[in-house]
């Protein structure tokens, strides 16, 4: 067996043969951005719950402190993205952002069939992941803007402050649901989840779940067993 990448190697290497073939999916900057963002979202959701859910607020109290933690982590929210985009490590992140933005015909078909159309051949991300990324980017902007109006309220008319609170509240509920869905799906696909930790996916995973991305980085045709069999349920 001539696996080109060794288990435990710090970063994944493209391996073309053998059962342990690995394809690099996320470089260090991409993973650092993901987990820094995840940590901030987690902290914000947790402190939001302490400020907002009556029973938790009653349990933990310390409203002034919780509020300060929430505000500071909120203001830090754009920092990981900015750092990821200005450093010399930005190539992978920028390529991901471009991929998130673009929805081709297969992506639209995937969405229409809610991910069930087996003939769809995907690139690096499925359209659900792309929508999730767009939602996260949009909500960072929204929460930062509305949170700032709530925190530095003096220059703003009252109606805007109430409106900002309204947007902040309902967007927070949407974020909680989307994050829960994101974690649910990640846990359901452990190879995908692990690639956000160790950086690589097994080649068979890419071949079967992301055939066009597989072909793009290996130059090999993706032969998925599912495609050759008649549709069976």
């Amino acid at each position: 067996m001539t696996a080109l990448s060794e288990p435990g190697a710090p970063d994944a290497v493209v391996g073309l043969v053998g059962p342990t073939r690995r394809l690099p999916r996320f470089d260090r900057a991409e993973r650092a951005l993901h987990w820094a963002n995840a940590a901030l979202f987690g902290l914000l959701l947790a402190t939001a719950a302490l400020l907002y859910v009556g029973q938790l607020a009653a349990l933990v109290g310390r409203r002034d402190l919780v509020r300060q933690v929430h505000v500071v982590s909120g203001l830090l929210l754009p920092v990981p993205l900015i750092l990821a985009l200005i450093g010399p490590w930005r190539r992978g992140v920028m390529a991901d952002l471009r991929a998130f933005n673009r929805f081709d015909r297969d992506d639209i078909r995937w969405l229409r069939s809610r991910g069930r159309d087996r003939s769809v051949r995907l690139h690096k991300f499925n359209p659900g992941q792309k929508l999730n990324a767009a939602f996260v980017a949009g909500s960072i902007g929204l929460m930062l803007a509305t949170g700032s109006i709530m925190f530095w309220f003096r220059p703003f008319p009252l109606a805007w402050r109430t409106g900002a609170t309204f947007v902040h509240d309902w967007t927070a509920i949407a974020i909680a649901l989307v994050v829960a869905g994101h974690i649910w799906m990640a846990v359901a696909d452990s190879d995908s989840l692990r690639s956000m930790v160790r950086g690589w996916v097994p080649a068979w995973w890419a071949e079967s779940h992301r055939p066009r991305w597989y072909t793009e980085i290996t130059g090999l045709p993706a032969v998925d067993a599912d495609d050759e069999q008649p549709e069976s349920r």
Partner: protein
Amino acid sequence: MPTTGPLTPEEAEITVPEPTPERAAPVGRRVVLGMFGLGAVGILFGAKAQDLLERTVSPLLSRDGTGLSSLLPVGRFRIYTVTGDLPSRSEADYRLGVDGMVDNPTVLTADDLRAMAPTRLNKDFQCVTGWRVHDVSWVGVRLADVLDRAGVQTGAGGVRFHSFDGVYTETLTLEQARRDDVIVAYELEGKPVSAAHGGPVRLYVAPMYGYKSCKWLERIEVTGPHPKVGYWEYRGYSTDAWIGRSNGRDDRPV
């Protein structure tokens, strides 16, 4: 003349059977811009939407038995405490001290308060952070009656409230404290005031923002005309916290 413009769909169909990612639709950007657009509309008109929700949805939510709807940001109390845990004291152990510039420093039990002439108020509760609970029913004793029972001395001008959370304080001028819609409350929505809502006994200052309605009321101290400001006033809130005329807000008065 050669065509230099973009391909028509028919031409694209022939020359590029599958659209490359570069030619695909920028849905991600549209989602982000759409969210920003909705957010801007929400900031401008959310106040009206919130008001509408409070009026139409909150009566329905009050009949929800599961309690899940209490997680929605509509027509509900939000429980704020400034200390680490929820202060709690049973009605039997409860004592309310009235002292300072009074003739007879007094300690009242919950039963003493219940034995006094009750005052019922059905009024909104408006928080300075924007939420409002409509038509809350309160039962308690007029603060003026409690003060009279201890006998306010001449020269007094202010009242300072202390919470048994050990931290929170509030103040009113004596004139404000003597209003008919300022009560020492022991019932909320037909039930004894719960610990989360500041029970067993709390203040309810109807015409002012919620932070004036000191929870877990333990001590009423009659002072000179300018008592030291309370917890949130020290952190920048208005001292005369009239609803709609303070803290830079213009809510409907209660």
